[in-house]
C-alpha cells in the first residue's frame, strides 16, 4: 500500500510540501492531528508529521516538512509520482476548538505548518485571531499568505531583521499579552526552546497556552512510551495524550534532552545518506 505523491513543491531552502494519497485518513482527520510516515518498510524510520490539510475529493493529505535529517532529506528528494511506503493516521487528539474570544497564535519556523489548520479552525469558530510568525530570516519564512487570509492581525518577526520586526516571537507575544484586554488563549507551536520561552511569557500574563509537542516517536499509538514527557510532574505520552498540552505544565528542559537522545547517530545517518545520494547523482550524470 504505497502512497503516491500527487504534487510536491519547495516553500523555502529547507521546507517542502506535498499532497499525498492517503484515502484512508481523510475521513477521520481533524486539526491538530498527525500521521506517521516511513519512506521504506524494511529499513526506514517512522517519523511523525502534522496533517497540514486534507482534500477529501482527491483523497489526499498535505504535509509540510523541514529537512533536518535522513528521513526528511529522503522525503525532500522524492518527486511527484513517487511513493511513500507507509502513512499511519490520523493520530493524536484533535485540537480543542471553541470560541475563546481573542486568540493569539504563535508559529516559529516549521511550527507554522501545524499551526495553520488550527488557526483556520479557530477562525471558523468565530475567534478574533492575532498571528505571530517567526523565522530566522525572510527567505525561510513560510505560509505568510495563507495566514494573512485568515488572521485579523499578523505580526512577523525575523531573527536577523531581514523582514518584519527584528527579534523573537516571544517579544511580540509579550507585547500582545500586555494589551488590554489581553488575549483569552494562546496557541504556540515551534521548536521546543521557542515554546518554552513563549510559555514563560504567557505564564507571567496568566494567558492559558496550548503547545503542540514534537517528541521522538516510534508507533504513535501508545505502545512504546518513547514519546513520554513530564507533565505536571507525571509522565504523559505525547502521541495519545497529546500532541497538545497546557504549555505551563510541560517540563521543556527534560523534553529537549530527550529530543537530543540520538543526536550523534542521526548525524551519522544523515551524512551517510548524503554520500549515498551524491554517488547516485554522479552515476546518473556520468560524473566519475
Amino acid at each position: 500500500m504505497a502512497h503516491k505523491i500527487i504534487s510536491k513543491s519547495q516553500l523555502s531552502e529547507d521546507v517542502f510540501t506535498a499532497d499525498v494519497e492517503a484515502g484512508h485518513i481523510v475521513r477521520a482527520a481533524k486539526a491538530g492531528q498527525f500521521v506517521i510516515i516511513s519512506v521504506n518498510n524494511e529499513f526506514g524510520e517512522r517519523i511523525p508529521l502534522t496533517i497540514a490539510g486534507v482534500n477529501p475529493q482527491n483523497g489526499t493529505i498535505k504535509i509540510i516538512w523541514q529537512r533536518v535529517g535522513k528521513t526528511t532529506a529522503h522525503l525532500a528528494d522524492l518527486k511527484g509520482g513517487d511513493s511513500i511506503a507507509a502513512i499511519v493516521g490520523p493520530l493524536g487528539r484533535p485540537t480543542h476548538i471553541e470560541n475563546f474570544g481573542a486568540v493569539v497564535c504563535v508559529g516559529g519556523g516549521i511550527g507554522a505548518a501545524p499551526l495553520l489548520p488550527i488557526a483556520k479552525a479557530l477562525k471558523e469558530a468565530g475567534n478574533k485571531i492575532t498571528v505571530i510568525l517567526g523565522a530566522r530570516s525572510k527567505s525561510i519564512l513560510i505560509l505568510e499568505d495563507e495566514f494573512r487570509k485568515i488572521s485579523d492581525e499578523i505580526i512577523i518577526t525575523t531573527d536577523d531583521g531581514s523582514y518584519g520586526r527584528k527579534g523573537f516571537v516571544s517579544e511580540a507575544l509579550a507585547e500582545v499579552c500586555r494589551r488590554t484586554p489581553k488575549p483569552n488563549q494562546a496557541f504556540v507551536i515551534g521548536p521546543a526552546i521557542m515554546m518554552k520561552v513563549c510559555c514563560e511569557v504567557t505564564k507571567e500574563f496568566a494567558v492559558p497556552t496550548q503547545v503542540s509537542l514534537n517528541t521522538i516517536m516510534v508507533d504513535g499509538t501508545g505502545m512504546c512510551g518513547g514519546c513520554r514527557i513530564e507533565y505536571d510532574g507525571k509522565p504523559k505520552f505525547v502521541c495519545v495524550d497529546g500532541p497538545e498540552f497546557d504549555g505551563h505544565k510541560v517540563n521543556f528542559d527534560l523534553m529537549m534532552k530527550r529530543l537530543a537522545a540520538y543526536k550523534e547517530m542521526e548525524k551519522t545517518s544523515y551524512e551517510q545518506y548524503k554520500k549515498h545520494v551524491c554517488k547516485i547523482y554522479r552515476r546518473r550524470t556520468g560524473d566519475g
Partner: protein
Amino acid sequence: MANDNKQTKQNNNREAGGLTAAERYKIPPQDMPEQAPEQRARNFEEVATGFTEEQARKEALRCLGCKNAPCVKGCPVRIRIKDFIAEIAQGNYKKSLEIIKENSLLPAVCGRVCPQENQCQEQCTVGIKFKDIAKSVSIGRLERFVADLDVDDKDTPKVGAPTDRKVAIIGSGPGGIVAAADTRRAGHDVTIFEAFHKPGGVMVYGIPEFRLPKSIVQKEIDTLTRMGVKIVPNFVVGKTSTIEQLLKEDGFDAVYIGVGAGLPKFMNIEGESFVGVYSANEYLTRANLMRAYKFGAGADTPIARSKKAAVIGGGNVAMDAARMAVRLGAEKVYLIYRRTEKEMPARVEEVHHAKQEGVEFHLLQNPKRIIGDENCRVKAIECLRYKLGEPDASGRQRPVAIAGSEFQIEVDCVIVAVGNIPNPLIQQTSPELKFNEEGCIIVDEKGRTSMEAVYAGGDIVTGAATVIQAMGQGRTAAQSINEYLQQKTKIRS
C-alpha cells in the same frame, strides 16, 4: 484378562516403533543443538538450530503413546500429540504435520515459543516418571522439527465458495492470523487491519529474531495472502476508523478484535523519563521491527548502544530485552527482579539461555530511582534489597523491601519490562463494548463481545498471555463468526 490387556498394550507399542515402555524410558532425551553462547551473543541468528532427523526419530521413540494422553490436556488447542509423534517415529512427516495442523495453524511458531514446560510437557508421563519435567518428551521441539521440514510448503488451504459476507480482523497477531484463516476457509471476504507497517503482531515486533526468525512468520502471512485474505497495514482501528464505522459504513458483517495488550507499564519512579530509559516495547520494537541493530548498515532507526544496561523484570519480555542488549554490544547486562528465580514467569529455557550469554541476575532487588547526569542521561540505578514475605493473592510470596538497603549500580541504559496492559484506544472509541477493570474486553466462551457481530480473543481478552492461547481463542471466535454469518445469510435470503 490382565494378561490380555498387557498383550494389546505391547502390540500397540510395537506398532508405534516396536519398543516396550521400559525400552523407551532408556532412550536419553535428545539435546537441542544450539549455537555456542559466546558465538550467538554476537549475532542475531536463531539460538536453537533444531533437531536433526536422527534426533527427532529418537526423541519420538521416547513417547509411550499413553492411552489417556495426559499431555493433550496441557495443550490449550488440544493437539493430538501422541499421534503426530508416532508418525515422526515412523518417518511420516507429512502426515505428522497434517495432524498438528488440524489444531494449530502455526506449529513452527508454537514449537519454538510455547511455554511447554507449563503446558503439554508438564503433564507428560515420561517426565512424571523421572520426576523431572526436563525429561518429558520434547513435544515442542518435535513440532518444530516437522514444521521446519517445509513438507507442505506449496499447499494453500482450501477456501470455500464465496459467501458475500465481509469479515474484518483487527490486529495481525497469532489470534488474528488464525481467525482470518478460519473465516476465509468458510468462504468469507476477509480483511486484516494492522496498525504497524508489517503484520505478525508480537511475533514480529516483540519476540526477537534469535528466538523466532521473522521469515517463519512471513511464511504464514504469505499463506494467508495466497488464500485471498487482504492485509491492510498502517490502519489503526479507533483512529483511522472506528469499529462502528467498519460495520455501518464500510460494509463489514462481523469483526474480530485481536489487538493484544500493547501498552507498557512503567514503575513510576524518579528519573524514569531520563534519556536511556526504555520500555521493553520500545527497545524491542526498535531492534526487531525497525532493525535498529543494522543502524549504520542500512537501517535508519537508532537505538542506544549501551555499555552497561539494567533490565527490570522477570518475564519473557525481560529475557528478550536483556539478550537483545547483549547482542547490541553491552558489556554488562543486569537483570533486576524483586523475587527469586523460582517465581520468575519467564520460560526456563530463556532464563538458561540468558545466563549462558552472560546476563547477570540480580534477584530480590528492585529499583527505587534512576539517577541521571547533567544532560539527563542515565548514569546509575538505585535499588533496594528485598525479602520474600507472606503469599499474595496469586499464591506467590510477596516481596518486601528491606528498609535502608539502598545501593547503586552504574548503568547507562535502563529497560523496563514490568508488564503490558491493553491499549485503551478501542475502549475510548467503542462505547457499546464492555471491558473489565483491567481494560480487557469481556467475552463469553464463544468469543462473543457485548456488541453484536463483534468478537474478540488473545491478549486483549486475557491480558498478556501466550501465542498458543491467542491462537486458540482466534479459532473459537472464528467458529462463532462462521456460525453467526451462516445464520445471517439464512435470514437475509
